[in-house]
């Protein structure tokens, strides 16, 4: 997909008129559409994810819900979060497909110090390259959605790839393919957002969900997974989806202040001592053992000439 984009002609030398075919290719930003309101919690997407990524079934724990395990794991990228919510005596059983959101401004990527361990493709997919990962775990604290997970054995971090291997071949992600209700769709970001908006309008108009809306948080530049929620004002209900996800403020200080400052300080410090040595000179034990200056008067004069 990015290959097609690379060879899309932008300008031509000595060519009259517009570039032939300009603008005929559509936007390449991809997106998952997740309609929480039509999810039935069948977990087909979980199985498809485990199957496609060739992960073994892992042990889980029972915590009185239908949820497969408490949170996503290094080899379990995709998890339906089940939440029971009561309003006005009515029970709402909320099921949200939790996975990497593929943020436009990824906190994990901002935090990562290792060259090439996290890449963001032009199509919006944020992908971990485990061969470059050094296992520092900075991405884990940088993620507002608690998605990257550490593997204690390989000392590397893993998360949903948005099936970049499938998308690169023109296929939709495995979870999308497995969904039986059509609550999952895959396409361009524009299409998915307009589809989600249309669905939210439908919910408002016909189903009585006055607060229905689309979750595409602009605080991190939007995400490449959008949710249609019954109640956009309370995303926390859906297994702790943050209303206003933020990359921790300290990252800004750390990345844009501390890191350059340290390098500048190191360079300035070394320059400072070099010039201190030249201009002010050493503190030599006194009295100094130096040959008398006046043995050769001409040399002495030469030395004096330099003094301003």
């Amino acid at each position: 997909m990015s290959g097609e984009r690379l060879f899309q002609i932008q300008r031509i030398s000595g060519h009259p008129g517009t570039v032939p075919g300009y603008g005929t290719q559509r936007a390449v930003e991809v997106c998952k559409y997740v309609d929480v309101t039509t999810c039935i919690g069948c977990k087909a997407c979980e199985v498809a994810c485990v199957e496609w990524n060739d992960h073994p079934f892992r042990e889980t724990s029972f915590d009185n819900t239908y949820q497969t395990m408490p949170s996503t794991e290094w080899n379990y990228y995709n998890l339906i979060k089940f939440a029971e919510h009561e309003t006005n005596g009515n029970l709402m059983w909320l099921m949200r497909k939790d996975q990497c959101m593929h943020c436009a401004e990824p906190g994990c990527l901002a935090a990562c110090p290792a060259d090439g361990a996290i890449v963001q493709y032009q199509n919006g997919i944020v992908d971990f390259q485990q061969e470059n990962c050094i296992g520092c775990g900075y991405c884990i604290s940088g993620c507002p959605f608690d998605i990257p997970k550490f593997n204690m054995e390989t000392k590397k971090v893993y998360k949903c790839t948005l099936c970049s291997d499938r998308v690169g071949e023109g296929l939709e992600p495995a979870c999308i393919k497995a969904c039986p209700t059509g609550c999952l769709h895959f396409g361009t970001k524009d299409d998915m957002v307009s589809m989600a908006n249309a669905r939210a309008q439908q919910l408002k108009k016909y189903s009585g969900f006055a607060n229905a809306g689309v979750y595409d948080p602009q605080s991190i530049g939007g995400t490449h997974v959008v949710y249609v929620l019954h109640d956009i004002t309370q995303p926390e209900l859906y297994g702790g989806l943050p209303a206003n996800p933020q990359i921790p403020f300290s990252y800004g200080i750390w990345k844009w202040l501390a890191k350059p400052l340290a390098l500048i300080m190191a360079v300035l410090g070394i320059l400072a001592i070099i010039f201190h040595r030249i201009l002010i000179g050493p503190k030599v034990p006194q009295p100094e053992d130096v040959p008398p200056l006046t043995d050769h008067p001409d040399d002495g004069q030469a030395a004096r000439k330099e003094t301003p």
Partner: protein
Amino acid sequence: MSSAIDRFDEKMRRGIGRFGRTVVHKGELLRHPVYTRILHWLVAISFVLALLSGFAVFSPVLFPWITPLFGGGPTARFLHPWFSLAFVIFFFFQFLNWLHAMVWTDSDSRFMRRFKEYVTNSETLEPEDTGFFNGGQKLYFWAIVVSVILFLISGLAMWFDNIIPGILVAISYVIHDIAALIMLAGFIIHIYESTAQQPGTFRSMIDGTVTAKWAWTHHPGWYRAMTGRDPREDYERALRETERERGRIEEPEAGKL
């Protein structure tokens, strides 16, 4: 408490001192015993390793340059906390060893006030009350103590980030960096002062000794305590002898050389 530390230090100095020796020639003073020297270099080696591996992970600019020294990024990341732990442990012993000598005094406050004179070399000898360590050295020591505490707390949070809340881990990165900045600044100055800036200092950490001249120039108070002699008088006598050897009495004109 303080006497228990002193007893421990004395025991270590005697115990470790048996493995090496310090030869003090005529006209020289013993500055650092074997125990101090061994501790210093253990601290130094573990600190430099921690610094390099830490900087590799700290800055994406330095990452491709420094990680190959440790066998790649994952190895640098793996080794960094262990180097650092060694540094903290060795420094703890150095802390006990030097705690007594590093107590802040009025003389050190005066040192801070005449910091400019010190940096610009405008005085021949240090003030008479400059003891075993001067104010700058003590400042560096206490800056390391503060940094080590910051390093250790934030470093443990980053090391065990699976059991520490994420926001504390995120704050720890910044605290760790602030500690590193303090250490880096002090470290650059420390290396400069002990080698190029003050000839005759480096040997005190290798052979353990310094010349009497060095002692009355940089630490007159310590010279007086060690020899019972007046540093200023000894300096002036040595000056007269040097002048006699040079075969001239008159000083070079001030400001002309």
